[in-house]
């Protein structure tokens, strides 16, 4: 099999387009890079959707946790405690069981598929972590900013939207960048615990596992996955830096560069 054939056959194998059967013998480097790369599509799918949807939930969670109302604050605290206090590995495992029993009861049966079920777990997970980050940032919004807002007569929703929230984002952004990186890393656990792969369609790690098993050589496929993730991480950092510059465009030059904040990593 030539390299071009491998790319034609396997570049989209992870989403069911291309050769039906995975390579069985005479494994080439090209096949491994292509197929593992096609698996990365799932990592991006999980990471990107969870990040975007989780972002909105995280904001709600952070505001709820900062709320003076008991019935708003307590659920948010518990939500964050459960998802931040337990390993994702175990969350996947338990979620799969819960989705299965829901399927047996006829509720939302599609959740046992990784595409939906694992995505929900990742969304909730990142919502909890980012929620905590945003909550921390919310509490450190400079008093002066808020007093200035009061002076301008801004109150309630418009004060939140125009003053509090943008500042929160600006403060939380470096830590949130880290969270995004970790979230993408966490997507490798989807098919590794709990959720089964269907029709041999899995993520990068799933295919790496397949090759490691067939070639009995772990030193090729796993470093390929590692390479893909380093690229992915660089891309995330690049995008988040652009955003950071935008968030800090009114600040002095020094603050526009992302600086690592040791306080808040996942």
């Amino acid at each position: 099999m030539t390299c071009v054939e491998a790319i034609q056959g396997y570049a989209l194998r992870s989403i069911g387009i291309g050769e039906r059967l995975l390579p069985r013998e005479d494994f080439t480097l090209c096949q491994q890079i292509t197929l593992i790369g096609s698996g990365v599509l799932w990592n991006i799918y999980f990471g990107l959707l969870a990040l975007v949807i989780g972002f909105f939930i995280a904001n709600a969670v952070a505001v709820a946790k900062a709320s003076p109302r008991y019935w708003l604050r307590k659920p948010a605290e518990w939500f964050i405690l459960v998802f931040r206090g337990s390993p994702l590995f175990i969350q996947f495992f338990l979620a799969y069981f819960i989705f299965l029993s829901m399927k047996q009861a006829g509720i939302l049966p599609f959740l046992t598929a990784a595409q939906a079920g694992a995505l929900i777990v990742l969304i909730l997970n990142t919502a909890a972590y980012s929620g905590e980050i945003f909550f921390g940032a919310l509490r450190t919004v400079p008093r002066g900013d808020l007093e200035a807002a009061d002076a301008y007569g801004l109150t309630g929703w418009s004060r939140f939207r125009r003053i509090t929230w943008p500042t929160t984002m600006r403060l939380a952004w470096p830590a949130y960048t880290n969270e995004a990186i970790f979230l993408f890393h966490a997507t490798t656990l989807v098919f590794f615990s709990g959720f089964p792969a269907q029709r041999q369609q899995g993520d990068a790690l799933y295919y790496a596992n397949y090759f490691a098993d067939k070639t009995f050589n772990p030193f090729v496929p796993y470093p390929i996955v590692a390479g893909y993730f380093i690229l992915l991480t660089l891309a995330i950092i690049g995008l988040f830096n652009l955003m950071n510059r935008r968030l800090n465009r009114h600040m002095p030059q020094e603050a526009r560069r992302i600086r690592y904040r040791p306080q808040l990593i996942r």
Partner: protein
Amino acid sequence: MKKLLLTAAAAAVAASAALAGSHSVVRMGTEGAYPPYNFINDSGEVDGFEREVGDELCARAELTCEWVTNDWDSIIPNLTSGNYDTIIAGMSITDERDEVIDFTQDYYPATASRYMAMSEGVDLEGGVIAAQSNTIQSAYIAETGAVLLEFATPDETIAAVLNGEADAVFADADFLLPKAEESGDLMLVGEPVPLGGGVGMGIRETDGELKAKFDAAITSMKEDGTLNELLIKWFGDDQPTY
């Protein structure tokens, strides 16, 4: 990688002093999750058909053996990198595996793989079939028209059928049979599919001497009928014997 998940009592054998230097202790690698072939019993030790066969083989070959468990996915790499000396884990002899490691002669005759489902009339050709990943069964299902659903452990494949995630599970008949008998819901369906060439012990290709010893011991167990006794003890009266 040291996947040495279990301390198993060494099968101490008398008069084992006269051994080849490199194999004063033979480490037997198994999975420990595939009854009746091998499993971990209530007291935390490796038990099952292969435990008894293995101990008897070691006694006959005058070897001191020690049992270790390793998960299925990495059981061959850990043999080739020397973390144990044999694989005795219900591993079918296939050409693919034979290229990387050597097998002794089979100590368990070639038998069929079967489908097990909750009802007759399941679509075996186009439905969702669960199988343990990296087995001859999963490779077979990948080539049929069915949707392959892969799990890391054999137990999960059965659970997948019970909870409706898969239409059927495809595995060794002997693994499925006791499960089907015990459960009221599960039954064997479809025709048996002959796969693989019996079950043998996996040994590194460079370990010719060890392989010869085990081969001789298996032959002697076949000849005096002790192997057949064990087969019937663990797999029931209908079990094909030698």
